[in-house]
């Protein structure tokens, strides 16, 4: 069991979508993970101790200790679900549990241990930080209780994930077979929502607000099992030993129930594998493409149609939608007052979405990129089609955002026109920059996990796009900030458009060149 947990944990670390230096380091071995976690634990506790020793925040500490079990349970669930969601469809090794001599109970325990192991560094930081504050407040004994309850909560979270995975796997296979066309986009949207929640939760302000909310509901939600361990901690803090023991026992029963149910479901449904997914029952009827009528070549039209069809069918798209959505929405959750910058956030989120989509456009082909190499397609056609797809997807969203925010932030038609023109110029520019780096740094690996663009490429994409957009927006910014007589708004708008167009054309030409080299390599 321990050995299986080790294998699953290593697999999880190495299959992570963000192959940062830390993740690659941890993937080398589990002892390194342990040592790093211990170091992080000690480091974070020293840091928070040092920061709070002079004036320990007693109230905040109690809120944190109460919230810890529920928080860690939630973290365990979301993190593991996110990993499972992003698991590549090209990893057949997950089926090994079907034919190895492993009992369902052994697998469930091993899988849960491996989930805990994968989040160990993050847990170490959180628990270490809490310990530091507890030591400063002379409440280390309370921390010990919270840590023990948190370990139980972690186990509960792992078992909850196993239950969710078994049920959704079973349900998914049935739904995909019967209603694949609807089920796939819904699955992507579900994944998007999970990632969105994860990203939002890790915003510091949102986290603090959440902790306060948890404190408020813990007592009221005593009948909800996941809350029992936090409620136990609250009772201990109130010196209600009997109540604390009662809820600890209930929490332990909850964990044990989770284990039994997840084992039973695993026995019944076994491991996840891809089911046949039926999109349509009607017979195949090829039709002329609308994009061909809009002036695209047959090759470009073929690629655009392919991209649009698969847009919401891919699990990986969830992150590209969720992260920009979080960028757009978090300020609204945490802002104390309205401002111009606040209403520009949705546009920023949309541009980030367009950038992510275009920067991964070539790499998303994966091994199937061969189809583009062997078909009679010119490199320029591929670049135009990829860029056009992103623009087609993002344009309606840009129109909606502008329609919603312009009435709030501008007071004249000239200003409105300027922002509309600037918005679409920025969109095209962002897409072309992303497409260039996508062709320059594609990553076609699909197993154990798809990445689409090399980390250096993503970094350069972000830096270049930010710099280019700043340059493009400069004339309008000068007009808005200084309102100089020598720069009327119409001239500022024209200048912005010219700069944006120039950058877009340069990026397009660069992309054509680099993809031609890719064809020849």
């Amino acid at each position, binding site marked *: 069991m321990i050995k299986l947990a080790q294998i699953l944990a290593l697999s999880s670390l190495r299959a992570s979508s963000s192959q940062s230096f830390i993740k690659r380091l941890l993937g080398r071995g589990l002892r390194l993970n342990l040592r790093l976690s211990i170091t992080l634990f000690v480091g974070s506790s020293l840091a928070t101790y040092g920061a709070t020793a002079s004036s320990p925040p007693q109230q905040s500490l109690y809120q944190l200790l109460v919230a810890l079990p529920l928080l860690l349970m939630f973290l365990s669930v979301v993190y593991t679900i996110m990993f499972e969601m992003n698991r590549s469809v090209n990893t057949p090794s997950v089926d090994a549990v079907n034919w190895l001599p492993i009992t369902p109970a052994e697998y469930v325990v091993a899988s849960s241990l491996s989930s805990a192991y994968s989040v160990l560094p993050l847990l170490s930081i959180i628990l270490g930080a809490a310990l530091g504050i507890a030591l400063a407040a002379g409440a280390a004994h309370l921390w010990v209780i919270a840590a023990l309850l948190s370990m139980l909560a972690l186990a509960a979270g792992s078992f909850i994930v196993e239950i969710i995975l078994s049920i959704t796997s079973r349900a998914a296979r049935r739904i995909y077979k019967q209603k694949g066309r609807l089920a796939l986009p819904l699955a992507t949207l579900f994944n998007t929502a999970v990632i969105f929640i994860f990203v939002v939760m890790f915003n510091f302000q949102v986290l603090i607000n959440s902790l306060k909310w948890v404190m408020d509901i813990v007592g009221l939600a005593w009948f909800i099992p996941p809350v029992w361990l936090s409620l136990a901690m609250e009772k201990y803090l109130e010196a209600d030993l009997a109540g604390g023991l009662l809820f600890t026992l209930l929490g332990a029963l909850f964990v044990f129930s989770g284990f039994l149910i997840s084992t039973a479901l695993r026995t019944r449904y076994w491991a996840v594998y891809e089911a046949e997914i039926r999109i349509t029952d009607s017979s195949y009827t090829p039709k002329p493409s609308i994009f061909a009528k809009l002036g695209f070549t*047959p090759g470009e039209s073929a690629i655009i149609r392919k991209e649009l069809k698969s847009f919401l069918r891919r699990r990986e798209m969830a992150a590209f939608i969720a992260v920009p959505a979080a960028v757009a929405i978090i300020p609204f959750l945490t802002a104390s007052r309205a401002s111009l910058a606040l209403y520009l956030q949705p546009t920023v989120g949309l541009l980030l979405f367009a950038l992510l989509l275009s920067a991964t456009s070539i790499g998303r082909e994966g091994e199937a990129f061969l*189809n583009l190499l062997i078909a009679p397609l010119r490199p320029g056609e591929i670049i135009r089609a990829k860029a056009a797809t992103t623009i087609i997807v993002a344009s309606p969203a840009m129109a909606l955002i502008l329609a919603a925010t312009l009435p709030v932030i501008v007071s004249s038609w000239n200003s409105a026109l300027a922002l509309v023109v600037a918005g679409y110029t920025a969109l095209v520019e962002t897409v072309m920059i992303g497409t260039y780096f996508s062709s320059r740094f594609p990553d076609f690996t699909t197993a154990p996990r798809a990445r689409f663009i090399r980390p250096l490429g993503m970094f350069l994409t972000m830096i270049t796009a930010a710099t280019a957009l700043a340059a493009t927006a400069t004339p309008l910014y000068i007009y808005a900030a200084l309102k100089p007589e020598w720069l009327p708004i119409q001239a500022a708008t024209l200048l912005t458009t010219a700069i944006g167009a120039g950058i877009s054309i340069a990026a397009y030409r660069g992309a054509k060149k680099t993809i031609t080299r890719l064809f020849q390599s």
Partner: protein
Amino acid sequence: MTNAIILENVSKRFDEVWAVRGLSLTIRGGSIFGLLGPNGSGKSTTMRMMLGLVKPDSGRVSVHGIDPAQNPVGVKRIIGYVPETPRLYEYLTAAEYLDFIREAYGVAPSVWRSRVAEFLEAFGLSGREGELLAGYSRGMKQKIALMAAFLHRPRVLILDEPLSGLDPKSARLVKEMLHKLALDGTTTIISTHVLEIAEAICDRIAILYEGEKIAEGSPEELKLLSESPSSTLEDVFLKLTGSEDIRELVEALVR
């Protein structure tokens, strides 16, 4: 029949390794030509040079008069290619993938529909074209890859292990189709490790070893290279590639 494909003293190097060295081939139009050789012998590189995916370092390649390095798009229009492992768009249905191929090759919808229906019926995939390719088995994906290569009526077919994963009926279908297409003037280049297949369907075979051609001829001509009159193509192949000592290896492995 004129010569469809000509390779004149073609060489290709990757870093320090010669993938192909001084290879010359003349492939008659309307024939089925086999490329045999152990792993790393240069078969795939040779095919990729015909397709224009790889530029030779020296020598000349001509496919129906087109230089693939100079006009890769032009040569791809007349070639249907099936790689060793099908690389399909897993998030498309079979019908959507074939429609993508149709549009990429510029085939009119009216022409395509009946062809696809016939192929789906023949390969036993009728009624399953609305399912995502991600749920297809290995053999089913191979059938779709073959369909994608055949449907746009190419003048040249380049097939890497085309029968891999196919059920016996489909394998027989493909073999018969290749013979029929050859009679209609389609030139086919096949790479396979299954020598019985090569023997059964190829008009001529070239054996590659470490990037060089070590033998070429019809299956009967190649068999004459062996000392024994009852030798199979497999015996000839193993002799030429220095892989005869199988018995000792087997003894060692099962000890």
